[in-house]
């Protein structure tokens, strides 16, 4: 008698729990926060297109759960806006996962929200090393500037480039890039003949480039957020730096695939190190580029897009491992150590830093069949983020 009563109660409780849980648990909501308008809208558009493409190619369900993406536009410039949107997504829309984050300050402002709400946060774009230290719930599928900058530094040092002038954008990723370039380049015998930081909103690169030219380096190392590359490239050519035998090197942001083809002649010959080029030679990438261009009226996928694509892959695969459950730490733990073959090549989520380890390719801008591409000619395999202490 007692037994049955308890059994009934237990069944009832279980039933209630299931009933309450079922509605929320049938779908996994992902809050995607991206700059869809404003100066960094290119990043938002690329990542969103890739997220949608992943869902289109892999089906709208993972581990039996329906995947629902809620997109919010943070316009890219106000960290407070991003943070507020993240709070709203968690409290009102009850999202299980946060994703997106176009720029470092935006991701960093949101990190405390992820920690407090115990919600996994997938950084799909922002590239400063420190981001993953900000919350144990952060996983990154994009890249760090230190990865690209350290590789180009090593390449420059062994390619007979002795004197380098650095020009970086004056905000966190730029300074990260500058530091990791210097620490990779100086010990191998190179000298930095000058370093400049340009304001993030800078009307005219001319004086900076003139100064670089007057310093007569072997190469100029440049980091600018994607979008400013075209203006810089033009002035680089106009100033006659290339004519004076000065090479242009840097992380791949400056030769962003999204705008590279529009840069024209001046961009040819630029040597960059980065984790993704639309010209990457693999069957995964060929299929990816073809599907992406088809779904987006010919828009070429850039490195930001592949961060979004792999972010979705990480979510799908982790859900399969956890049987569709997203409870904070367990999800993050299941994601740690995950490896797969991305359109960019092999990648791994490092268990200790939750950051991405990947091949960094050395590429040169070339004219391929009438269009400009970053053509890969060398690579360093499985680069861990060197910016982690």
């Amino acid at each position: 008698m007692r037994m049955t009563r308890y059994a009934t109660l237990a069944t009832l409780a279980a039933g209630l729990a299931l009933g309450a849980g079922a509605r929320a648990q049938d779908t996994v909501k992902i809050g995607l926060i991206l700059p869809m308008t404003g100066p960094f809208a290119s990043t938002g558009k690329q990542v969103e297109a890739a997220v949608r493409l992943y869902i289109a190619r892999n089906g709208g369900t993972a581990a039996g759960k329906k995947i629902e993406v809620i997109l919010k536009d943070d316009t890219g410039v106000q960290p407070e806006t991003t943070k507020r949107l993240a709070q709203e997504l968690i409290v009102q829309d009850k999202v299980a996962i946060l994703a997106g984050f176009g720029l470092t300050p935006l991701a960093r402002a949101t990190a405390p929200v992820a920690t407090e709400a115990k919600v996994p946060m997938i950084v799909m774009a922002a590239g400063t090393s420190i981001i993953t230290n900000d919350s144990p719930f952060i996983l990154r599928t994009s890249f760090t500037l230190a990865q690209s900058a350290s590789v180009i530094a090593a390449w420059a040092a062994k390619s007979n480039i002795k004197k380098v002038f650095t020009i970086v954008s004056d905000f966190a990723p730029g300074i990260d890039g500058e530091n990791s370039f210097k620490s990779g380049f100086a010990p191998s015998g190179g000298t930095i003949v000058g370093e400049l930081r340009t304001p993030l909103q800078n009307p005219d690169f001319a004086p900076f480039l003139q100064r670089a030219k007057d310093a007569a380096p072997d190469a100029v190392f440049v980091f600018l957020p994607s979008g400013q590359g075209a203006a810089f490239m033009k002035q680089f050519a106009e100033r006659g730096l290339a004519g004076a035998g000065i090479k242009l090197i840097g992380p791949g942001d400056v030769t962003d695939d999204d705008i590279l083809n529009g840069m024209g002649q001046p961009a040819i010959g630029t040597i960059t190190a980065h984790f993704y080029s639309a010209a990457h030679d693999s069957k995964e990438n060929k299929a990816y580029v073809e599907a992406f261009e088809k779904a987006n009226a010919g828009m070429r996928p850039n490195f930001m897009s592949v961060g979004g694509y792999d972010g979705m892959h990480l979510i799908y695969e982790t859900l399969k491992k956890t049987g569709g459950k997203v409870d904070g730490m367990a999800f993050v733990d299941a994601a740690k150590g995950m490896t797969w073959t991305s359109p960019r090549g092999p990648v791994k989520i490092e268990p200790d830093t939750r950051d991405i380890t990947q091949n960094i390719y050395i590429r040169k801008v070339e004219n391929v069949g009438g269009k400009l591409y970053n053509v890969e000619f060398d690579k360093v395999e499985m680069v861990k983020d060197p910016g982690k202490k």
Partner: protein
Amino acid sequence: MVTVLFDGIAWGTLLFVLAVGLSVTLGLMNFVNLAHGAFAMLGGYVTVVMLNRFGVPFLLCLPAAALAAGAAGVILERTLYRRLYEGASHLDQVLFSIGLVFMAMALADFIMGSQQQIVHMPAFLRGQVRLMPGVEVGAYRLFLIASCGATALVLHFALVRTRFGSRLRAGVDNARTARGLGIDVERVFALTFAAGSALAGLGGALGVEILGLDPTFPVKYMVFFLIVVAVGGSGTVTGPLLASLVLGVCDAAGKYYLPQTGAFIIYAVMVAVLILKPQGLFGRAAAR
């Protein structure tokens, strides 16, 4: 050294063409038009579309851009701006024109997308020209100085030497008396506004190569325009010209010699000038 000076002058003359229209509307017509940059943006986009999509020669794009911006100026002046000439406070004008800026930005974003626009110059405007041994200057900047300088001359002449110029100045100094003398002040103002907008359009077209172009253009460069007018004093041609040149050279030299603080130099110059001469370099007391 010479190259830095040259860059500064090129940047300054471009700033002049962009801002002189604002100086005219603000100084002569006493209207605070923060939407000035939107006309410049229109000129820029007209150039981009004509040059990149239809392959129109760059030199033909310039007058087209000016015409388009001027036409937009006339339409907006007749339908909207004129309502705020009399009786409206400066605050109304500011609120109205900043609203117009946001609308223009959203429209540009909707039609053209938010990315930076890239234009490709004809071959004779690319690369560098050797002026004398050791001094190489950008061909496009040389072209800028020449065309903007010519614009300044024409403008000065039009304002000081022509009948239209004297009518305009009369209308500004005392609209009632001018009307009494048979001057159609309304029409003169409308034409002036159109000319100011057309100049902005021209500046926008010339500036795409140097400043870039995206929907945030009107806000990004608004401060520069306002500084030129504030430092130069409104209502003249020589004032803004001198102010633009001073600011352009200071900006370029500041960024070259003191790269860490260079971006702030122009603000320092502005503060210094305004402390010494609150009306600007060539200012005169507001007309009304």
